């Protein structure tokens, strides 16, 4: 969607493309749980169409419905007619926000603090991360939780407290140099995007990604300070800020000088490929955005594309793979992460039942819609425990935290990791050394 687009101004054929055949219904988690059409993709599209036709205004009930949708895009995979649901959904959420139908002072404040302040200022976000880290590492969090003090918080805040991700002691810029070169002449020049949550909670996945790229002859550019990609904003009805962030990225990183722009986070990846549409009608950025979209690669997709080196080190374990929605449904990438896992000697990969069913993380959905999110999390965790896997691999920070949180309450849970971290470990065990370092880290 372009940032000023509304359901009424939208190209009507996108709405019309839905032939309401119902093939999306069995794949929609909210329809599955309720069996009510208003909570289904075709039901939601009918409401959007009613707004475009002027038969309905963006009421509170409409806004709530759009918030109840996970945005998992399973419906896009199921749709025989190729409806661009992501486009419709983002436009509808923006309409709902603009109408003010959902607004109240607390919600407005939270949205301002997160979408407009924290997630547009990477420095402030990292500072918040540092404070959180201090709180966690000092034992203050443990003490406060031990004393059951979060009970004094209102329920919503109590939930948020419980879900604060464990912050890494070091962030990406402390682990990765701005330019890292592989052994010998580089075959490719790529940039690595480090994102927001991934940078704070999983910076080691970025180190692993860099190592895997180096091991495959890629020269890696990693900007030390990186803005948010805007996916959070686009998915949550703030396309204006998403457009500001997209322009900021296009100013910072020239896609013409790179072979690929790499992301290892599914939620970012599916948004990053759509900068051109987001900036539609902006002649200054059009060509650059087009080139940007063309260069964006999910890390697994890139590895398979360049024919990655099979690792020699063994990992003697049983693993399973959870498809992040925005990787399998949002970007159609299902085969490549499995190819990466299958290449690891000793690793036995078992199928996860319903691997493409949303885990309930869905961006900030687990904060805004706790009931449905918990239901989906339990369903996912039950499936994981039904396998013999000791490792769950997934390629999205939201899923990672959600699944880890769900497994934490179960006896001897498997550990959660990123497929690329397993590949990096297998390279290191096979004797691969990072250029310029004397030890295998």
């Amino acid at each position, binding site marked *: 969607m372009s940032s000023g687009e509304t359901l009424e101004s939208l190209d009507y054929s996108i709405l019309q*493309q839905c032939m309401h055949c119902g093939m999306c219904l069995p794949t929609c988690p909210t329809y599955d749980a309720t069996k009510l059409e208003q909570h289904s993709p075709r039901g939601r599209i009918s409401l959007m169409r009613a707004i475009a036709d002027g038969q309905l205004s963006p009421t509170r009930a409409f806004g709530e419905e759009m918030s109840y949708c996970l945005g998992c895009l399973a419906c896009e995979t199921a749709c*025989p007619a190729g409806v661009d649901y992501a486009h419709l959904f983002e436009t509808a959420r923006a309409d709902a926000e603009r109408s003010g139908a959902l607004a109240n002072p607390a919600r407005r404040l939270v949205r301002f603090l997160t979408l407009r302040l924290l997630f547009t200022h990477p420095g402030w976000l990292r500072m918040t991360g540092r404070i959180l880290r201090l709180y966690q590492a000092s034992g203050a969090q443990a003490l406060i939780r031990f004393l059951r003090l979060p009970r004094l918080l209102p329920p919503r805040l109590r939930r948020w407290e419980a879900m604060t991700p464990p912050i890494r002691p070091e962030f990406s810029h402390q682990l990765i140099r701005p330019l890292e070169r592989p052994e010998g002449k580089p075959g490719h020049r790529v940039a690595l995007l480090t994102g927001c949550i991934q940078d704070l909670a999983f910076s080691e996945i970025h180190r692993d990604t860099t190592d895997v790229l180096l091991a495959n002859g890629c020269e890696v550019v990693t900007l030390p300070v990186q803005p948010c990609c805007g996916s959070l904003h686009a998915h949550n009805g703030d396309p204006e800020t998403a457009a500001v962030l997209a322009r900021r990225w296009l100013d910072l990183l020239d896609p013409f000088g790179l072979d690929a722009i790499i992301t290892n986070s599914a939620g970012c990846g599916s948004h990053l490929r759509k900068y051109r549409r987001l900036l539609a009608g902006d002649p200054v950025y059009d060509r650059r955005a087009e080139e940007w979209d063309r260069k964006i690669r999910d890390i697994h997709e890139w590895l398979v594309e360049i024919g990655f080196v099979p690792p020699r080190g063994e990992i003697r374990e049983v693993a399973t793979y959870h498809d992040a929605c925005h990787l399998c449904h949002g970007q159609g990438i299902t085969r490549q992460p499995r190819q990466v896992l299958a290449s690891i000697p000793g690793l036995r990969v078992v199928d996860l039942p319903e691997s493409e069913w949303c885990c309930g993380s869905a961006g900030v959905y687990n904060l805004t819609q706790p009931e449905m999110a918990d239901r989906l999390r339990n369903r996912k965790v039950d499936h994981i425990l039904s396998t013999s896997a000791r490792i769950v691999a997934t390629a999205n920070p939201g899923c990672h935290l959600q699944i880890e949180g769900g497994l934490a309450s179960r006896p001897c849970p498997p550990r959660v990791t990123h497929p690329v971290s397993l590949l990096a470990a297998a390279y290191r065990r096979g004797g691969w050394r990072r250029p310029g370092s004397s030890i295998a880290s």
Partner: protein
Amino acid sequence: MAPAGRPEASLRESCPGLKVLDQPEQLIPYSFDGTAELTQLPAAVVFPRSTGEVASVLRWSGKHKVPVVARGSGTGLSGGSVPVRSGVVLCLSKMDKILEVDAANLTLRAESGAITSAVAAAAEKAGLFYPPDPGSMRISTIGGNVAENSGGLRGLKYGVTRDYVMGLEVVLAGGEVIRTGNQCVKDVAGYTLRDLFIGSEGTLGVITEVLLKLLPPPLSRKTMLAVYDDMEQAARTVSAIIAAKIIPCTLEFLDHVTLNCVEDHAAIGLPRDAEAILLMETDGHPAAVESEAEAMERIARAHGARSLQKAANAAEAASLAAARRTAFAALARVRPTTILEDATVPRSRLAEMIAFIREVSRRHQVKIGTFGHMGDGNLHPTFLTDEKNGEEMRRVGAAMREIFEKAVELGGTITGEHGVGLAKKKFLEAAVGRANVELMRRIKAALDPDGLLNPGKIFDFS
């Protein structure tokens, strides 16, 4: 006449505990089914959880003279479950339990809102087989399948939904509950009333429970794909296979337009200049399957197949079936509006009918891709159009009318498996004759004298 004021208020009083939706944001998503162009907002949508609740809704409907439209998952393609003005939609999606699989009697009992693929899976789990496989089976309800007498890809060998219904529980207009049929293969005690409700499109009663017949599953299957330069050759292949006393379980074709749309969408490597491709599958005992497959291959080659691929294993079979599987999705992407029709002719007239569709498509300048079930003569001429373009829609309408008239002229029918509903009402009399429609009206008058059950569907009644 609807009662004065809001009908849902008295409905809530009459049926305490019943889930009732009546807000615009809740009703708009129930104002259509899977049919293009048809929409009507209902007054309310209700979700019974038991036969008793269905009965109390129909008692209320009879008392207040409010029309009721029964609905499953709303995937119908003839407008059969599109609401009627001021009417109530009775949605059976919450009555979705599989009640019993009886391996000794080879039957399965389920509530009518059970999903068709769940029925098939429950049979499979017991080592048995429920053959009807309508295209929407992953979400369609078994009650909807019975009410529409749905078909599927296995029609030639295994028949349609009707062939698997042994018994029904039905709530009649006014709320009386009857059970008809049982687990006996033989039963001639009076009229076979269950047959009256199969394919009645919700106009004679509301089906609440079904008793289905199951089969032992075929032990083995073999899949082939043949390519032709001429549709006539493909059709003759099919006739010759059947003349050789082989009844394959699948004989599916794609025409030139459809296979090119499949190539545009999925690039699976079909020859773009071909006029027809034919997907053939035989199933049964391994020895029989082997010899039948050989004979089918020989016959296809003898009738001009320019190439023929035979799957060596399940993975290869799936890849051969890919073209047929993606056919509808490939067509649906071409234009904003997709209208899937199901004109059906005797098998022997199929090539003639397909040639006629192509000619109509050219003459009216309307894009039509045709695919379907060559074994049973059931075609799916699929109109690729834009409902916002009034002028083009008039041409679509004219082309459609000619196609239906031709189908009837060739001894066929206006609908093979989608039903009449609203979409084909105007063609019914020409297809079956006035006497038939009159008899249908008399049956309707006997069962639903006030015309409250899905009124205005199939034919007008008043």
